């Protein structure tokens, strides 16, 4: 009799421990999923950053603000003009592409042979310009993006849910990254972009129209930003004129983290950054999240200055 109670007690204890472990593991999985979801948004933005940097050799700090513009365009077309969500997204994507081309033409083209510092300062100027235009047009009150799609969530077991937004974001990021990789490596225009990125004069001698190629690069980068604004909009729903800056900076960090100029690097860096952010929020401290994220970046750059997948460019003379 006594033995039975004893065994029962042990079994109960073991079950409690297993249950706790399961809860812990579930929590971890949930956190990881949240991290991957956030990370895919970073990755989408980072892809735009890395693409423009890789080919035009400039840091387009206005990239984050193009996301903000894209989000406002979705808001305007869907919430104010009552377009269908698909049409709203198309408007946003097309207008962002155009905006990218216009910004490059008005602000950066004249500085093609200027020092990179001048270009960087101009980019910061463009960033503030876009934010203030948005402030004038939409005011500082946050606007809410209506629900665009109803994608059912997936339930795994009792406690793990993958939301539709997460799946959409992740799916979109993977599709865009694959398309971009194929475009850059296999198409004539993509190869011309790589040629321009390496050596503008030699590219010109091959008959490549360097200015047009860079314009197209900006258009593609801005299309990524528009898609990022879509993912951001459906996950976070509220937008204001400064919405683009923090994700922009984080995504820039992600691009550097993964190795700026490298497409898989941007993807990896973005996802890792999102995961680190969510993990440190859940397990270490909410307040210190950003400090931890940037701390990891500094650590990676000390150990590997070119970023995780960055290439060391060797030149033979």
């Amino acid at each position, binding site marked *: 009799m006594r033995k039975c109670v004893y065994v029962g007690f042990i079994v109960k204890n073991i079950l409690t421990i297993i249950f706790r472990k399961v809860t812990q593991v579930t929590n971890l999985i949930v956190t990881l999923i949240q991290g991957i979801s956030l990370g895919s948004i970073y990755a989408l933005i980072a892809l735009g950053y890395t693409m423009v940097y890789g080919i035009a050799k400039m840091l387009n700090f206005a990239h984050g603000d193009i996301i903000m513009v894209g989000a406002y365009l979705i808001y305007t077309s869907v919430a104010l003009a009552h377009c269908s969500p698909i049409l709203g997204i198309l408007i946003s994507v097309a207008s962002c592409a155009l905006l990218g081309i216009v910004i490059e033409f008005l602000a950066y083209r004249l500085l093609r042979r200027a020092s990179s510092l001048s270009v960087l300062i101009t980019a910061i100027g463009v960033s503030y310009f876009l934010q203030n235009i948005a402030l004038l047009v939409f005011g500082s009150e946050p606007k809410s993006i209506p629900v665009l799609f109803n994608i059912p969530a997936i339930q795994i077991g009792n406690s793990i849910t993958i939301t539709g937004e997460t799946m959409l974001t992740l799916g979109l990021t993977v599709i865009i990254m694959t398309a971009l990789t194929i475009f850059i490596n296999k198409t*004539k225009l993509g*190869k*011309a972009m*790589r*040629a321009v990125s*390496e*050596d503008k*004069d*030699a*590219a*010109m*001698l*091959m*008959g*490549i*129209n*360097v200015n047009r190629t860079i314009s197209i690069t900006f258009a593609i980068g801005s299309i990524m930003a528009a898609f990022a604004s879509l993912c951001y909009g459906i996950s976070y729903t509220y937008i204001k004129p400064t919405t683009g800056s923090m994700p922009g900076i984080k995504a820039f960090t992600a691009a550097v983290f993964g190795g700026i100029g490298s497409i898989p690097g941007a993807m990896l860096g973005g996802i890792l950054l999102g995961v680190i952010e969510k993990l440190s929020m859940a397990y270490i401290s909410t307040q210190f999240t950003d400090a931890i994220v940037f701390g990891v970046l500094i650590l990676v750059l000390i150990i590997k200055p070119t970023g995780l997948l960055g*290439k060391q*460019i*060797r*030149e*033979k*003379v």
Partner: protein
Amino acid sequence: MLKADDLNVYYGKIHAIKNVSFEVKNGEIVSLIGANGAGKTTILHTISGLLRSTTGSITFEDKNISHIEPHKLVRHGLSHVPEGRHVFLQMTVLENLEMGAYSMKKVSPSALKRVYELFPRLEERKNQIAGTLSGGEQQMLAMGRAIMCHPKLLMLDEPSMGLSPILVDQIFSIIKDLHSVGTTILLVEQNAGKALAISDRAYVLESGRIVLSGTGKELAESEEIKKAYLGG
């Protein structure tokens, strides 16, 4: 075929090219020789439109090309192998060659075959990243890339620079091969002896001016040239 008339080029305040006129006739090999900094490369850059002359004109096949944008020149049949090769180091050999044919609708298999015949090494290494090639192989790639667009005039800037003597001989024999199949060649060289030996005509540059011109043979035998450039 190519006629440069009264070119003056400035780098800021520096007057780099002074009243330079010269001509390349169809089917010739013409060399521009001269010491470092004489302005040879500047002249080629001006023809390609990377630099502009403040005076005069450049005509190619009776068409004034002085103000054509550089990337449009290839379509006129003018191809330029820049000094220091400038191959795309992070792209594969084949991709570099494809870029050479960028101005064509698509890469012509016959052009590719011809390049591989001239430079068998490039075929062996077609999937290798250009940055991993040796200096000589990169020079071959730069030349191969430039003839992918079937140019009528090929401009070569210091093709022998930094190469071992065996490779220099190889490069010069390839230039002769290219010429024998009908490509007109404008060659810029510091290696005056080699250049004059294969040239129909040559111009000698000194601090931005043409100081002498003549057939390759005449110049190679001229006492002045021997003293200044041929080490004897």
